[in-house]
């Protein structure tokens, strides 16, 4: 190998050059990071789109979705309307399978990921909270698992 010491000197050269290089530190807490559109953040739920088909509860690998429907209040319409929809973010792994199988795209992922809470019970989000979480929702939802496009699981 080259005479002793040139490896060290080359290394020192690299670090000296980097002193002038552009820095990559993000000013995160002050400047929010905007994520690409497909980012899997916390879900947004739209109650009136939901037909209570139970697919999301069935596909969820960690069983963190519990939902109950009730018969449709106005008589001439048929089918069910969602009554309570709870997402337990303590064990939700944001794997995006629920939005994949939802036939009516009632549950869609948004781009925000801040979910720190002071106590564990804050992590049980209910229907209204999820409906309220409507900032930067994902446009391209790509629910390939939904029934009309390739079959309900």
């Amino acid at each position, binding site marked *: 190998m080259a005479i002793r010491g040139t*490896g060290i000197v080359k290394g020192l050269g690299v670090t000296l050059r980097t002193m002038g290089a552009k820095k990559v530190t993000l000013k995160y807490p002050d400047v929010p990071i905007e*994520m690409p*559109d*497909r980012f899997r953040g916390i879900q947004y739920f739209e109650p009136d789109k939901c037909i209570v088909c139970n697919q999301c509860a069935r596909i969820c690998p960690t069983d963190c979705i519990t939902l109950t429907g009730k018969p449709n209040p106005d008589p001439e319409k048929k089918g069910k309307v969602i009554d309570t929809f709870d997402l337990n973010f303590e064990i939700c792994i944001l794997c995006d*399978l629920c939005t994949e199988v939802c036939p009516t795209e009632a549950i869609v992922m948004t781009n925000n990921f801040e979910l720190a809470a002071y106590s564990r019970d804050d992590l049980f989000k209910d229907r209204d909270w999820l409906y309220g979480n409507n900032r930067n929702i994902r446009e391209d939802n790509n629910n*390939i698992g939904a029934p009309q496009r390739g079959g309900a699981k």
Partner: protein
Amino acid sequence: MIRTEELLLNVGPQHPSTHGVFRIIVKLDGEIIKEATPVMGYLHRGTEKLAEDLNFTQIIPYTDRMDYVSAMTNNYVLVHAVEKMMGLEVPERAEFLRLIVMELQRVASHMVWWGTYLLDIGALSPFLYAFNDRERILQLFNELCGARLTYNYMRVGGVKWDAPEGWIAKVKEFVRSMHDKLAEYDDLASGNEILLSRIKGVGAYDAQTAIDYGLSGANLRSTGVKWDLRKNEPYSLYSRFEFDVPVGRNGDCYDRYLVRMEEMRQSLRILEQALEQFPEGGETMGKVPRVIRPPGGEIYVRIESPRGEIGCYIVSKGKAEPFRLKFRRPSFVNLQILPKLLVGESMTNLVTILGGIDIVLGEVDC
């Protein structure tokens, strides 16, 4: 006569350089290790037990969490096994996307190894350089499948997302700029005399021991055995691209270092060819039955992950859930040689050898 006692030291499970929750009980005589017994299982989440109640789409997020530094190869091995069992046809474009993400994942995983390995040996800066470039790969994955580490990207029969427009160009740009970054890494560390004196001749073993211990990946190739599943048992589209398999000679930490650095360059070479031949149109999802029920029987499929041969053994009874799912995890098998290598080494070499084998605890405990 002075009576000297041996010192029993617990290295880990909470220790800066054990690459995860891993403990070694070391019997020290002064600085020299007399005997080392590894203890693991702190990160055992029983993936194989859980998998028995989940259907195949639900298992994919669990495979991301096994080798969390190269999640794409874990996804691929499970999905490839099920496709082979059901004889499904994966469209060309999906197979290309899979190959590109797997090779990008290999470069990212080797960069994590390189950064942490040099941090273990004492150099502070390489860690930041490696993670700075790896960030660009994670950004590419984030744009592709929405996550930075646990991708859940592949499905039985294809991939979930198509490449967003402009993504292929970004990958090309990354691959081109990565070449001179690798040259910078070599300037910074590979020639450094102190680093060479630290890793040359440390933790050496010969080819026969490596085969006997069932090692795979760079640990096996560093001893001169030319065995890379992408070449010897080609899967996916690897037979279409030409790349060569770097092989070391005397199986010490330095050869493992060189083999892995060369593997990064070879992966970049594959990526260049794959990006050239990327098909224009094409489906990303093949024809898949509504409920994935592989036929009865069993199958063992193995691919080359950055850490070695990862295998997936599925016994199916024709139901939607696997009857038994076992993963052959390279880190678990490669770790067996550690106690043998450590005897007679000094404490500082323990860290060098452990870093050289490149294990990830999520995969060891599975």
